[in-house]
């Protein structure tokens, strides 16, 4: 049936060892299969549900109608599952609409409130190293999730970014309460005291999904990867304007100079090849006349076409423009992650809304995006042996997450350096054992 093909597009496997497997998340699954997921099977991937059998087209049989109605019922039941929190281990957050603020001094000390609200003008400084976009604080942060999420303030409260708060609420791991100021209590808006009234999923989406640079495409990518166990953090490219605007001007003028030098450099190299001191291609063979003692010698003389060396960094182009900017750093579950000192990310992701950007990015957009990532040469031992893996891995890489109304496709873009692979220097024997990628849709 068509379903095996339907699943042919999948997350790129990242270390060059791509292999196609069935990705069940590619299409609507029969929710009756959900009941096959045993909660007993500890861990997440122990039992992956079987793909449900689907039919080609509706027919008027009662059987088909029954199965469909059972599927819909199963879906209804699965989606009705409540988010409830046992009082013993419930984690409560409080929504802070104006961002990170200090806790109210002491509940009894009413007269000092006006004074205390003053410092909130420069909140992040006052309360510790908390991201200004954070908007939910958790006073009892007892969950493994906080190993990779949130930032603590001076009062040991954990502050969550909108995507973190929404994700935790959505998965039933956090109960977020409205602050008193937002639910009709006649209180100052800087007061973020717990009102005990829980935010619904709907309210949380309304409050968080468009806050602090978040949008529904970015959130789809964030939660999709979080659900799979990746650690996802904001990258510096998150804010469209901020960082770029400040660094734009000096960089631009520098670019022009460097570009000039770069072009001149290429040109001079080109000329060196074209007009080697001894030979002239207009008159003689390209390889030049004279004695050639090895093929390497001849091939190197024949390579007269300049090529781009991604390691040379001659041409720092224009800065990456939204949406082709890295907005997420992603860490594999196996990568040891410390919130205070995050390691270099395993993947860098740019998020593109397929509805707003319907064509493939231009070379300059992609170039700028790749320029914004660090050099990541194919250096592993395995890759040093395998030509095709080196080419696939490239020297810089980035992942594009293309989102079409909630459906995310991931594409890995890498900067290959064919010019660096001198085929004539390869041993003929080595070729036989080389890794050959199977043709596949990418």
């Amino acid at each position: 049936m068509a379903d095996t093909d339907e699943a042919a597009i999948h997350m790129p496997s990242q270390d060059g060892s791509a292999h196609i497997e069935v990705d069940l998340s590619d299409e609507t699954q029969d929710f009756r299969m959900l009941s096959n997921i045993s909660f007993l099977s500890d861990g997440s991937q122990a039992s992956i549900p079987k793909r449900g059998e689907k039919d080609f087209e509706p027919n008027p049989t009662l059987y088909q109608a029954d199965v469909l109605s059972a599927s819909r019922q199963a879906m209804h039941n699965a989606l009705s599952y409540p988010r409830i929190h046992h009082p013993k281990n419930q984690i409560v957050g409080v929504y802070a609409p104006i961002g990170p603020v200090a806790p109210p001094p002491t509940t009894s000390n009413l007269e000092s409130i006006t004074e205390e609200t003053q410092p909130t003008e420069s909140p992040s400084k006052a309360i510790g190293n908390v991201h200004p976009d954070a908007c939910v604080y958790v006073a009892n942060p007892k969950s493994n999730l906080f190993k990779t999420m949130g930032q603590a303030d001076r009062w040991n409260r954990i502050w969550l970014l909108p995507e973190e708060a929404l994700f935790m609420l959505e998965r039933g791991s956090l109960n977020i309460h409205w602050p008193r100021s937002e639910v009709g209590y006649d209180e100052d808006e800087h007061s973020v005291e717990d009102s005990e009234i829980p935010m619904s999923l709907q309210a949380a989406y309304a409050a968080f999904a468009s806050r602090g640079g978040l949008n529904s495409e970015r959130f789809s990518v964030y939660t999709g990867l979080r659900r799979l166990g990746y650690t996802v953090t904001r990258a510096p490219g998150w804010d469209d304007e901020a960082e770029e605007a400040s660094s734009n001007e000096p960089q631009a003028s520098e670019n022009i100079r460097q570009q000039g030098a770069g072009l001149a450099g290429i040109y001079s190299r080109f000329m060196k090849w074209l007009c080697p001191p001894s030979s002239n291609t207009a008159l003689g063979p390209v390889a030049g006349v004279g004695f050639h003692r090895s093929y390497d010698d001849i091939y190197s003389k024949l390579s007269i076409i300049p090529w781009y060396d991604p390691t040379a960094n001659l041409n720092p182009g224009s800065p990456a423009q939204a949406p082709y900017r890295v907005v997420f750093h992603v860490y594999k579950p196996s990568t040891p992650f410390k919130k205070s000192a995050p390691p270099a990310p395993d993947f860098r992701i740019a998020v593109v809304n397929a509805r707003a950007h319907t064509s493939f990015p231009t070379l300059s957009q992609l170039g700028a995006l790749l320029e914004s990532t660090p050099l990541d040469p194919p250096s592993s031992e395995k890759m040093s042996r395998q030509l095709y893996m080196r080419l696939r891995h490239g020297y810089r890489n980035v992942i594009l997450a293309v989102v079409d109304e909630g459906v995310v496709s991931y594409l890995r873009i890498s900067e290959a350096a064919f010019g660096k692979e001198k085929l004539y220097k390869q041993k003929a024997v080595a070729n036989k054992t080389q890794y050959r990628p199977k043709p596949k849709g990418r």
Partner: protein
Amino acid sequence: MESDPILLPIPISYIAGSYFLFSIDAVTYLRREHHICGVLSGTLPQIPQQNVFLGLPLKLMPEEARLLVEKGVACIVDEVNAQRAGMRALAADDRRKYLRELEAQGAHAMRLQTSRKELQREEALRKVQAKKAAAAAKKAGADAAPDAAGATAGSDEPAATENPSRRASTTTTNSEIHAPYGTTMGITPATSHPPLPYSPATSTTLPPPAVPPSYPLFAHLHADGYYLSPGLRFGCQYLAYPGDPLRFHSHFLVVAADWDEELDLMALVAGGRLGTGVKKGFLIGGAEHTRADDAGIMGEPESVRTFSVEWAGM
């Protein structure tokens, strides 16, 4: 739940540039009665660590939202403002009433869980006994490890609502939980009604969604009984299913074009080839413009013409 009357128009939440539904009853109703499926985009709290089965909210394409508004089935709500204004306007009575309701639900959920835990514990004990008796000192692998991600233990508590038997089979012990500590569960409701009213204030309703030029084709296929979903994964605009995607494979990869839009034949061939490769047809179509100066005006779904392309195999 099938018989629950649904109040029309159903409010669709417009948040962060997208159209969302948070009510499971609305989702089920629209799927059953109007063939609108949307895309589930939320995390299922009962199994939060996978992407195969997703939960609420349901994200609607602008086309879907527009269609429902045009049918008079739904309206669009500026949810961000509706929430803020609505919650701020809560009176003390509203808050008290709402908290009491939640408390009652939480207590009910707690009772259900405790009694189920009892049952399960007894059953587990029986099994252990039986196994021990059976023979070999094999470990009874029944002691479930706690959820790896440390989801709150309470989250494996099934719905306090319908269909307890099915639920019982899907949920199993999380024997880490001991006797209840408090008396009520904390609850994160899916929707904000209550305490907010079901129907939005007129000040927070929005005009029908803006839709891409492919809308007439979307509406045309929908009117023909097809279920449509976003098609990016297959390099097209929509996937068209002959029935509910829960149960049927899609028939077409759909791409829309304007009546006089220049089509590269290569796109037709590429689409045909791609479709045939996954046993689907490639369908291209658009609204017919009788006059050239109609260009730019969105055509009517009734005037849409479509063409199906398949590889001929020769």
